[in-house]
């Protein structure tokens, strides 16, 4: 079967298929670039897997659609990145998504955090979208043409995700007493996982120019987030900082059950095509 489903009337089709130019342009990544693409692809896939749960459970129909749309964008980014990451070792995006065990995943803990209530999901989105927006903005300058092309496509979509999360942070923080209480809780529960996003692992030293140095993003991410928190009359949470370790394969307790669900059907039928 073709990997393409053409349907003009359908607005989401371009996110369903791998962008042809990306597939063709992709030279095979070096081992280190492949590992870096895995970091980014795993972050997006894990977040999309979390967000997909909301469909048919969101507080209003418009949010079923919005969260579904965001998840769909993120799966698109994950597919491009995993496709690129796998080429080096002869593995497909699905080999990587369905046949790696937990220690082989590279997602940061933020993305693995459970949906919680809507305020937790929004807090996670707020941090994630700001981080991803600055990351992809910088990655567009990568010396690696494939990463730069993926980033150029992703940054436009992540910009919308960022806007969506900002609107909700304001509504929840300044809405009712209850929503404010929940927003404060959500933000303080998710904030410990911010720090890991800015940690430079040794891999980054070997990818000068190709990868974005995580520590270099802190200034821009904070400069974008803090004024929103100020407008929402929210303090920047202080307290726990998670030691992270996702890039080295040390994960939060949430990833295992998530992978069990994501992989269960594929693993029940080794070698099957879908």
């Amino acid at each position: 079967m073709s990997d393409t489903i053409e349907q003009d009337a359908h607005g989401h089709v371009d996110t369903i298929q791998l962008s042809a130019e990306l597939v063709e342009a992709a030279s095979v990544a070096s081992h280190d670039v492949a590992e870096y693409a895995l970091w980014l692809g795993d972050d997006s896939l894990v977040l999309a897997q979390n967000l997909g749960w909301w469909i048919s459970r969101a507080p209003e129909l418009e949010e079923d659609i919005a969260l579904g749309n965001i998840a769909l964008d993120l799966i698109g980014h994950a597919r491009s990145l995993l496709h690129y990451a796998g080429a080096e070792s002869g593995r497909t995006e699905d080999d990587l998504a369905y046949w790696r065990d937990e220690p082989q995943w590279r997602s940061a803990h933020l993305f693995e955090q459970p949906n919680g209530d809507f305020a937790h999901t929004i807090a996670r989105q707020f941090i994630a979208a700001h981080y991803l927006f600055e990351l992809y903005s910088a990655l567009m300058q990568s010396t690696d043409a494939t990463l730069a092309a993926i980033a150029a496509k992703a940054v436009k979509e992540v910009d919308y995700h960022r806007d969506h999360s900002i609107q909700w942070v304001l509504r929840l923080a300044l809405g009712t007493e209850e929503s404010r209480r929940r927003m404060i809780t959500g933000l303080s529960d998710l904030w410990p996982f911010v720090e890991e996003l800015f940690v430079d692992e040794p891999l980054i030293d070997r990818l000068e120019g190709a990868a974005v140095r995580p520590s270099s993003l802190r200034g821009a991410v904070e400069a974008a987030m803090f004024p929103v928190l100020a407008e929402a009359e929210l303090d920047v949470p202080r307290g726990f900082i998670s030691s992270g370790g996702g890039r080295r394969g040390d994960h939060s307790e949430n990833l295992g059950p998530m992978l069990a669900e994501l992989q269960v059907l594929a693993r029940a039928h080794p070698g099957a095509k879908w």
Partner: protein
Amino acid sequence: MTIPPVPYAIDPDNAATVSAEEQQFNDLIAADSRIEPRDWMPDGYRKTLIRQISQHAHSEIIGMQPEGNWITRAPSLKRKAILLAKVQDEAGHGLYLYSAAQTLGISRDLMTEQLIAGKARYSSIFNYPSPTWADMGAIGWLVDGAAICNQVPLCRASYGPYGRAMVRICKEESFHQRQGFEILLELMNGTPAQREMAQDSVNRWYWPALQMFGPPDDDSPNSAQSMAWNIKRFSNDDLRQRFVGMLVPQAEVLGVTLPDPDLRWNEEKGAYDMGEIDWTEFHEVLAGRGPANARRLQRRRDAHDEGQWVREAAAAYAAKQAVKAVA
């Protein structure tokens, strides 16, 4: 296709009692033109449309659940993306349809209340469970396929906002049906376990899909009036017949067996003969005694209840912003 004789929307013997606005409505219907929200319309027409459109909207919303069930477990990333897009489309269809119903003077809040209170109907088919991945194929192929047969004629429904919503919905539904067919095709070309999964799913969904067209014509009390008002264009049995005629060659391509031993081509009739539909089951599920009725409504109610504080926050924030804008 033959259309049974239908009664006039009004009794011609009482023409003297017809007001000018009613006459205008009757003329528009007679000319097969569109009725728009600001036009005068008989109460019965308005009520029929509100019932039909809101039931359709509820069906889209409840219909997100059997497929939503597999988003987290979809067996490839491509399938996950397609399924996510499809379920998201259904939410979008629900939105257009609620909006179309709102133009008739009912609020979305009231429709939602009716749904979660169990007072409103939605398509019975969504009260069946989706235990296997193959159900994503069978739902697309059979359930969306039946929906298309029902809905394409609705694009010409006399009520403008409904007909226009249906045009957009039908385009997306044809994508949905095709992706369902593709899922089944891939399974039927796969391992013995995959083929078994596909056939089992077709066995479970075939008869409920045929029931989606509603009771037989001689037991469908509202049909004649809906046809007179140009809301409904073809009878339940005609549409069902058309659907089966479409399925048989597709089943052959797939290599699945349709679970009806009496299904065979009738040369004389130029159409397929089919076995008896179990209407007892249909009425049982409709009456709330299907396999997943309680579960479907509970999920909807939970989402509504747990989202209450979020909707309140959004409303409070909007009110504060409005005050600020005035100040």
